[in-house]
């Protein structure tokens, strides 16, 4: 029972990270039909920016360091994503494959730059003392970081749903995911929504980068890419363009991965997630309706 509780919550924690990455990816795909490979780069750059900021504030308390790192990561992710959309994605508006390719190139260039500048060894992240312990739940000792990550993901989920359901931009995004041309035909400049969606996605990815660092205790250049692939799988299973779908799929994928990695052998869980994707895609009749809530 305690093992189950531990696996469940750890799985939820992993799922929380996937969700943070997948939500942005899903909206970007749903609205702009762009497969954003650079999302992993947003994740990584933001994580390192946050880590550097935390290091710069070395004199302050670990709480302040951590919060600063978080804030910097979110801002860095959002800024980087905005620049990417304006400089690289927008000029390629008519060239769909070109947009995907340019994100591939950006991912390649950015991550290797980070690796060159910081080295490939993982860097320790300074955590507040109360986060390094465990909390007893259902008899299991759950690392507090898992709960922190889950809490943030829930908050972001609530914020995103609020944004989509209650703001005009959210309305535009929801409509645009369904039918971009008709939104234009109502006199709305969808382009501004594109930039906003990219920025939101980047900020969420940045948060994920920092929270992953919290979850694992370290940051490294390769994690963005490996998490990105699972995030893609989550996006597809959850339905392209759907934030709620991403949330549900993220939970399923995270928990499944944890359980199978534990009860099977290491790697079995990862493998099964891939199989799950194949099954889902085969069962769904090929179409992906966009609905962003």
């Amino acid at each position: 029972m305690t093992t189950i509780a531990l696996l469940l919550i750890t799985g939820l924690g992993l799922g929380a990270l996937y969700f943070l990455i997948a939500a942005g990816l899903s909206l970007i795909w749903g609205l702009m039909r762009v497969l954003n490979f650079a999302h992993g780069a947003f994740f990584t750059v933001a994580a390192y920016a946050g880590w550097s900021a935390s290091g710069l504030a070395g004199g302050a308390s670990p709480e302040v360091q951590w919060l600063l790192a978080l804030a910097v990561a979110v801002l860095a992710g959002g800024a980087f994503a905005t620049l990417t959309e304006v400089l690289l994605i927008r000029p390629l508006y008519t060239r769909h494959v070109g947009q995907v390719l340019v994100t591939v190139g950006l991912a390649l260039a950015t991550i290797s730059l980070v690796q060159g500048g910081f080295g490939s060894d993982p860097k320790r992240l300074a955590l507040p003392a109360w986060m390094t312990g465990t909390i007893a739940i259902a008899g299991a000792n759950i690392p507090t970081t898992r709960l922190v990550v889950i809490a943030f993901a829930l908050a972001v989920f609530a914020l995103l749903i609020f944004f989509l359901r209650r703001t005009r931009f959210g309305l535009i995004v929801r409509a645009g995911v369904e039918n971009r041309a008709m939104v234009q035909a109502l006199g709305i400049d969808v382009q501004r929504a594109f930039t906003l969606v990219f920025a939101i996605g980047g900020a969420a990815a940045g948060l994920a980068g920092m929270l992953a660092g919290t979850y694992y205790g370290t940051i490294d250049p390769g994690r963005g890419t490996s998490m990105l692939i699972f995030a893609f799988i989550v996006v597809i299973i959850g339905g392209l363009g759907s934030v709620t779908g991403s949330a549900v799929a993220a939970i399923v994928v995270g928990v499944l991965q944890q359980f199978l990695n534990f009860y099977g052998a290491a790697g079995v869980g990862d493998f099964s997630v891939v199989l799950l994707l194949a099954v889902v895609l085969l069962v769904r009749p090929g179409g992906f309706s966009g609905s962003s809530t």
Partner: protein
Amino acid sequence: MRAAVLIGALIVFAALPFAGFSIPGLFEGTLGGPGTLNLLGLCFVFGALALTYDLVFGYVGLLSFGHALYFATGVYVTAIAVTRWHWSLPAALLLTAVVSVVLPLVLGAVCLRMRDIPFAMVTLAFAQAGSILVAQNPFGLTGGEEGLALGGDTLPAFLVGVANTRNLYWIALVLLIAIYVVAWRAVNSPPGRVWQAIRENERRVAVIGLNPYLYKLGAFVLSAFLASACGVAYLLLQGGANPQVTTADFTLALLVMVVLGGVGTLWGAVLGGVVYEYLDFRLVALSNTSAVQALPGILRVPLSEPLFLLGVLFILLVLFVPGGLGGALRRRLPA
């Protein structure tokens, strides 16, 4: 005129191992020496590999993110059969050939049920599964993170040892030529024309009564099989298998190669593969020179990372030169 240039180039390359002089700056050591031959051999392998990817991406229009998987099949199946099971090389090659047809047939049958982005994602997912599988070192076969050195008593002598690098070089050259010919014949054949029609407008192909699915599957299996052959040559040149070739990064590098050289042109893809591998190699050497090491960090770091330079080059190409190097060259050279 193009044919004459091509044949001339082939003769030059074939005769290269006998060259005693060197071209400093371009290659270290003499042209005929093992260092250069190994590099060129790898360039040929990557040129051929880029070509196989161009078949499926440039000609049929299938954005596959899992091509590395089939390359890795060639590398790992042969390595395992020879090193772990002590099979003879011909037997190992036969096994590899069979796997290289069955695996893409099965996976392709599943992946091709989808189109465009979902297709790309499933191919990526399967490749990722393969990568995980290799890293797990099941039954101690793959060597996990450390890779698998090609060893053993069953390898023919003429393929082993630094002195025989020239043999591997020639094998790579022959591979490139063979794959080019196969690709050229395939693309200009009736099925090849259907491929290109599918790339333009798949619905119209279905309307004429042809089954696009079968044609796509055919192209998929063919390119995978050829990629696997490249994997075997790579294994021989490198003397071992390493899990890097199973990663998504590797397939993305293939994408970069093909776009670099020009999508949908055979020799463009070859050019892209050759240039990419060359740059990847030489940029590392360049970055280790004292000149670069002396630069301030902000310049030195980007210049020391070949992938950074390649990534930037790639972005610039996509933005400004969509036809790739091949396209740009084609505009300058007479047909």
